[in-house]
């Protein structure tokens, strides 16, 4: 699983951090989402999927 975040589209709502706190965080200076790991383990799959669905700006892309 490879995750990319479109930083331009991200609106800093923080939904991904709630859904998958071990994978996503927010930058301190502008709240934009950042990855804590680019290759999360399989156990994070469901949480990452939820993060992508919850994102109000559809800024998270997942590739197998």
């Amino acid at each position, binding site marked *: 699983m490879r995750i990319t975040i479109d930083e331009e589209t991200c609106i*800093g*709502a923080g939904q991904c951090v*709630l859904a998958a706190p071990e994978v996503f965080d927010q*930058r301190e200076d502008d709240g934009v989402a950042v990855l804590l790991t680019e290759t999360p383990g399989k156990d994070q799959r469901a949480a990452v999927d939820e993060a992508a*669905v919850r994102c*109000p700006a559809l800024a998270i892309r997942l590739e197998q």
Partner: protein
Amino acid sequence: MTDTTTGVFPTTRAEGCPFDPAVGYAGLRAADGLTKLSCPAGVDAYVLSSYDQVRDLLNDPRLSSRGAVSNHVVVDRELTADAPPGSIIHLDGPAHSRLRRLLTAEFTVKRMRALREYVSELIESHLDEMLAKGGPVDLVQGFALPIPSLVICELLGVPYADRERFQSHSVILISTDATTEQAQTAVDDLSEYIAGLVTAKMQQPADDLLSRLIQRGNESEQPLSMQELITLSISLLIAGHETTANMIGLSTLALLRNPEQLATLRDDPSLVESAVEEMLRYLSIVQYGLLRYATEDIEYGDETIKAGEWLVAALASGNRDESVFPDADTIDVRRNPATHLAFGYGAHQCIGQQLARVELQEVFSRLYRRIPNLRLAVPFEEIRFKHNALAYGVEALPVTWDA
């Protein structure tokens, strides 16, 4: 309860069902495609009533927020007027992103969680005071209104000595009983106060939102003007005060009317987060939905929404969509409906949602446990609801308990 679709935008709730959205949405959701209805303010608008319609279109950059929020029902400005400087809810595209980017750092999950201790102390001290005084009390005046207001004061960096003045103005500002003149006076007084506060923060920056916002603006390509700072501050105040206050009052009433759900929540602290999301979904207090304007032709399903037409994203209706939330008209504190629409969707999704979550989670963790036998002090039928306000809630909530 029958649900019929007429040609008029739904604004009336069924008698005896104060927690359900206005009558008519179920029929709209069942219909194929979009329905165009006439709205009280004299405009016709396509109503996005299903969960998917709301999500699909609120994320479409061809829709403008210039008419936000509920001008199709509660008219407070000319529909196609330019957004006032600093009015983040009315702006689109880069003008909106500029303000949003300057603010988001202040509302991150981490920063809001750091406020949790302050929020919990505030709640405990208000509960101490209520318990010492004894019932009956109006939970709205004594608890639901002051807590979010004081949290905003803390965030903005309003000095303690000024908080009472600030609070009394903000209560008038969001009151449904205040006359237009009273509301205007409150806006003028608050604007004047905030202008002074901004000047003070410019001269002597402190560790608060306003100081950091000024600094972040100054470091950007286009510093924030005084008018922008005042409008942003008042927007944060209204958005953060009224909504949370209404959620505290209305959730408490809805839980008191569903005692087994209240007991489930009270007996299992691990359900607090789920219960907050469920009450946000179930109550969806932005009661008329979000008004949007098509800036160009948009093909959606079999329809063409023409440039210049209006749309309303009915958040409350999408949140009762059975295809997404089975048994949607029932409260289930275990449901954890993480993808609900109560905070909106798209680029304008509520910037203060993580703050609202912390406030509501702390209230849900404490209020019902500190006062386990909380009950209404008047018959349910006597509770008055804010039927004509943008954010739905109870006017007052007289409660009592056994000492």
